[in-house]
């Protein structure tokens, strides 16, 4: 049997107040939340989008992508028409299937990220390494894509 205090409906507070203070809290939260927190929110709406960085130096493009808790075999890296695609699936732990869940913030399931490389790369020399949950892909530039220095003789 439940004992719930009975509320006289006409005495309850005007609902508008609650809504306004909620809005106020929401605005405060948005202002105070750091940018990364907002990125997290958009990630919630769109599923799992692993974060990535792209660096370029004279000889290589280096892509770093955060994929914590994966198995090497579950990550696919492919190159097609100058666009690099990283995809895979992160499987949830089966041993916790029956357990009570207190907090569930991690994403599981399929992901895919594709980016177009700014220049041609030597397809046969691409290397990838997976360490501490970060996948590093090194893509050496193709000879024709490298900037060339031409000595011009001025007569």
């Amino acid at each position, binding site marked *: 049997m439940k004992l719930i205090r009975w509320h006289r409906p006409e005495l309850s507070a005007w609902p508008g107040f609650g809504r306004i203070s909620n809005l106020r809290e929401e605005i405060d939260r948005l202002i105070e939340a750091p940018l990364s927190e907002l990125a997290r929110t958009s990630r919630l709406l769109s599923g799992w989008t692993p*974060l990535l960085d792209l*660096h370029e130096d004279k000889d290589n493009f*280096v892509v770093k992508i*955060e*994929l*914590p*808790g994966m198995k090497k075999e579950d990550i696919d890296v492919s190159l097609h028409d100058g666009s690099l695609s990283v995809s895979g699936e992160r499987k949830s732990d089966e041993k916790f299937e029956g357990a009570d869940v207190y907090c569930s913030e991690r994403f599981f399931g399929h992901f895919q990220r594709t980016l177009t490389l700014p220049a041609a790369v030597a397809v046969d020399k691409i290397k990838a390494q997976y*360490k*501490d949950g*970060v996948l590093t892909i090194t893509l050496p530039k193709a000879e024709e894509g490298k900037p060339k220095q031409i000595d011009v003789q001025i007569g």
Partner: protein
Amino acid sequence: MKATLEKETTNNHPVREEYVAPSVNIFETKEGYVMQAEMPGVGKDGLEITLEGNEITITGRRIPEIVAGEALFRERDNSDFRRVFELDPAIDTAKISAKIEQGVLTVTLPKSERVKPRKITVD
């Protein structure tokens, strides 16, 4: 005017440590709790787990990355990870263990024997 502006810019950059909260999953079983925290870029050496009173603090420092050249595209945050959790008094703090695998920290927090459910045989 210029002086004020300069003063403001210096004041806006206080030296402080910035952390991001790792995403976590927490499960409870009969034996205890298991917490998984995502800390990509953190190795065993960068981990610090401290117990104080009824709180557990997990800190993960990323190995500083040196990538040659210029960044064309950046989404990743280089801040270190930190998060504090309150412990259930049922946890046997002497038996807490932790491991990190591919950027996921797993902390196992067993419950002490006296609170574990058990069956009593009737004579």
